[in-house]
């Protein structure tokens, strides 16, 4: 069953030309497609996985339009079903209910970032820090229309049964941004960079929910401060390490000299 659905997906999926195309090497078999599911990192050997059928996308995108009015509640989902031409009862087919709506928002906004790569590369040049900041701000701007209801979404994401999937979405976002910045790290930094960006982004998003400043200026300043801390953290840890090792060796030498004096 997975093979059939994966093969149908391959034939029907059309990638927009602006998205980075990751081609599958010819020697890999179709069995590779079956392992599309739970991956929170990019892979050149697998095509991106779209978990939504066209009818689900239609319902969920119409439901998102009602969120500013009703919030992340069942009513938005029901209105979305109605607008998409289905019945009021169709909402029951979504396994996670309103959480499916939250996940859909996270999924669509994350996928829009890749289209901005060219523009951001031109405007920000080679600087990694500036490009990371730019991607974060673009992603935060996508929350602006529904920010008044975003606390509801955070509460839903914080429910124990939803936490694994919420963390996966955050990891995917962090990985998406780092991948688009073309980071070619292949040591342990790969993990620390993604973890630190995830922490920065989630704290900024939380700050944004209670920010009333015009055009969310305070949020973007908060983001700058968080990113500066992360950038400084790297150098301060290595400074600390140098200080500690110098102090340690100096103390040992001092003690040795005391003993040798007799």
């Amino acid at each position, binding site marked *: 069953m997975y093979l059939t659905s994966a093969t149908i997906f391959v034939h029907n999926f059309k990638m927009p030309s602006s998205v980075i195309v990751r081609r599958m090497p010819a020697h890999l078999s179709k069995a590779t497609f079956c392992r599309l599911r739970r991956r929170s990192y990019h892979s050149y050997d697998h095509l991106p996985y779209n978990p939504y059928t066209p*009818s689900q996308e239609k319902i969920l995108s119409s439901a998102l339009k009602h969120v500013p009015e009703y919030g992340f509640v069942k009513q938005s989902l*029901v209105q979305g079903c109605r607008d998409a031409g*289905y019945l*009021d009862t169709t909402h029951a087919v979504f396994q996670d209910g309103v959480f499916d709506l939250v996940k859909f928002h996270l999924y669509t906004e994350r996928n829009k970032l890749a289209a901005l790569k060219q523009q951001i590369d031109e405007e920000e040049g080679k600087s990694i820090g500036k490009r990371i900041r730019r991607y974060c701000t673009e992603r935060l701007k996508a929350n602006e229309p529904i920010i008044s209801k975003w606390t509801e979404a955070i509460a839903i994401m914080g429910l124990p049964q939803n936490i694994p999937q919420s963390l996966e979405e955050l990891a995917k976002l962090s990985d998406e941004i780092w991948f688009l910045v073309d980071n070619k790290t292949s040591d342990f930094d790969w993990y620390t960079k993604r973890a630190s960006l995830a922490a920065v982004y989630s704290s900024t998003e939380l700050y944004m929910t209670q920010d009333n400043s015009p055009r969310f200026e305070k949020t973007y300043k908060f983001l700058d401060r968080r990113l500066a801390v992360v950038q400084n953290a790297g150098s301060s840890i290595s400074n600390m390490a140098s200080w500690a090792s110098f102090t340690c060796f100096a103390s040992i030498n001092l003690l040795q000299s005391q003993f040798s004096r007799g």
Partner: protein
Amino acid sequence: MAFLPRQALRPSHFLRLRQVVHRRVFNVRYLSGSAPLGNSNAESKVGKDQGTEATSKTTHFGFKDVPEYEKEELVREVFSSVAKSYDVMNDVMSFGVHRLWKDHFVAKLDPGRRPGGEPLSILDVAGGTGDIAFRMLDWASDIHNDHQSKVLVVDINDDMLKEGHKRSLTTRYADGSRIEFKVQNAEFLDAVPDNSQDLYTVAFGIRNFTNIPAALRAAHRILKPGGVFACLEFSKVNVGILDMIYQQYSFNIIPLMGQLVAADRDSYQYLVESIARFPSQKEFAGMIKDAGFEISGDGYEDLTFGVAAIHTGVKV
């Protein structure tokens, strides 16, 4: 078996069911025509031997193989014998957890007319005693203030429907304007028009159907486009150690408890075997997709580690 005394089942009834099952299973010659619906009295069949060949396909009745045309009758007899003590049987098998499962099932479906929407037309299949039907009507009335949505309860067994009708007389739906009981075969649903129902529910009934794909196709026919198919059923436990414990409990303890509580070991043995024969969650989700429904995610939700599962699909 239709003429049950009002007090508890007597050993004589127990023996009669055993005789009937024994005769059918070991392919002793029997009457060829099926009994009229609603009269599942075994006595009318005993002693009328005619030469009939059993050349058609076989299906499973628990762990035994029986010809397909017999399974319907055997299932009807099982449920006739347990109709009066159906709740007791469910409590025995699941320690009362079945009530929580059914509550969660109805909460997930969230039936009820929404502001700006139409009243719902719900079909509850194999829901003879009305457990799910009453819960859905209560939910619609209390949560959504919807006093117009209707439920049509169908079942192959008239005794179960009679029990359900009797129970409805003690609820606020006694006048019958919102709930209706009809004898129907789930594989055909003759009396239900095409594209007429918003919601099709079947709770703990589909494992007894002779031809599950035919029932799924019938469900697809009678649902409106956008209508939801929902099935609550016992399923495969997904944790290895718990599965072992569950199998031991099922096959050793449940028939014994059935014998002690309701004096009907055979029915409970059949029920436990039918659970073991039912396809796994993923297989059943595949069958639902094959019938033309569209599923979301995996298409099912496990309850209590997979002891029960809710499958949903939408007709597109």
